[in-house]
């Protein structure tokens, strides 16, 4: 039962964040692009590291790609080459 309650709370969080954020985004007019690697879908092939023009991606200890947000210039080249659409 406890687990079900927690799951319901997480579901509500996803929905609330989705809608609340959208309103905030519309009022400020801000456009944010941040590239992150979905660790569950990354196969560690390194194609993103190969194309990144700012040396912003490295492998972590699990062999998955990680984007250094301070170096990333949001060029989006990694998105096009990722075979698993993990970015």
């Amino acid at each position: 039962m406890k687990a079900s309650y927690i799951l319901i709370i997480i579901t509500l969080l996803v929905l609330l964040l989705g809608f609340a954020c959208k309103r905030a985004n519309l009022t400020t007019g801000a456009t944010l692009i941040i590239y992150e690697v979905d660790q569950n879908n990354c196969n560690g092939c390194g194609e993103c590291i190969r194309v990144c023009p700012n040396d912003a991606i490295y492998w972590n200890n699990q062999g998955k790609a990680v984007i250094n947000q301070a170096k990333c210039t949001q060029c989006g080249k990694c998105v096009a080459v990722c075979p698993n659409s993990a970015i």
Partner: protein
Amino acid sequence: MYPVREMCGSMSKQCYLIFIFVLLALALNAEVQIQSGLFSVNGNGDNTYLNQTRIDANYQLLPQLSLLYSAKLDAADRKLGNFPQNKWLSNYMGVDYRSKHLQVSAAYRNLAFGTAQSLPLYQEWRGDLELARKMQHQTQIEAKSSFGGMELSAFGIHKHLDTTPTEYVFNFDTFEMEAVQMPDRAFDDAYYGVQAAYRVTPFLDLRAGTDIQQANFTKNEIYDINTVAFGAQLQLEPKATTRISGSFDWENRAGENLEPVTRNMFYTSLRLQQSLGMNINGFISLLNTSCTDDEMSDLYLISNQIRSQVQYHFSYDPNQASYLNAGLKLSPEFRTNTYFGEGQFLLMNHLYAMLNFKRIERSLSNYQAKVSFFPSPFTECFLQYTISSPDNGDKSLNYLGVGTSIRL
């Protein structure tokens, strides 16, 4: 033929080293897999050839200790698609120790960028420099210890990048910008951190961690980031055929080069995995990524994302290797929705056909057809045709090739 000959020289040496490693692995009776394909590529310019080779070796030295080796080579006569290098070689060597309560892994990776083009690396720091990547070395170590419901881990990564810089200076005599090649230069990054996770109940995990990303080549530390993260993950299996998981993570980042609104990141996910019987499996997941500034004055949406995938296994194939797989990734904010479909079918004894389609909106479409013949369960010979069609106006690239995969 190639503008930067010495880079190819270092790659050739690496290729010889790969052969030595493979021979060594075979001598040690390690599990080795070799895949290689040769493709003729045409479209968007001259015809060329592409060789793709991958080697994986795994050697169990002791019951708790294993050695791993992996190499991946892409070699073409000219730049293909989005990739800035004609040649690219990646090597990985690792050692892994696992006992009941302790897991330690150490590894060395290197990347040889072959005939690298000049790239605007670190343009935020030195906009007047272009740096051609030659070789990247990465050493890493991780230790994980678990006792009771608690798991502690620590890691350290050091990355060293060798480059050839080109500086652009204005010539007052010719009134033109001139490219001046500078002495080789190296850049070092360090990443290290610790994490603790605690299993509160069999279905609930709590985790906390901190890590530091340092770029040690700039005096003003603009690329440094310190991150503190907290998270919770829930996993339920109400039925043997259903798995539900959800997670919430908060990351606080501090870094000079970060947008203020990305200092606090929130990641929320929900995933439902279902087996519907009749050889049908699938999942659907919802992901929300949001952020706020330090004052938490406003909440910004980065993306909502829906991922879904369904797989059907044909029961007529005794090897269970014939399937249909279809999926999508919808992200209304990025408008880069992705759709894909894949099917593999047993045509007759040992002969399979595979069809593959993938579309990334506003980026590219890929189509692939492959016929594979398996003379034995460990050997594959294939004929493959791929069309990669970018949306940026460039012509499509057509890859036609043959290859083999052998497990020894």
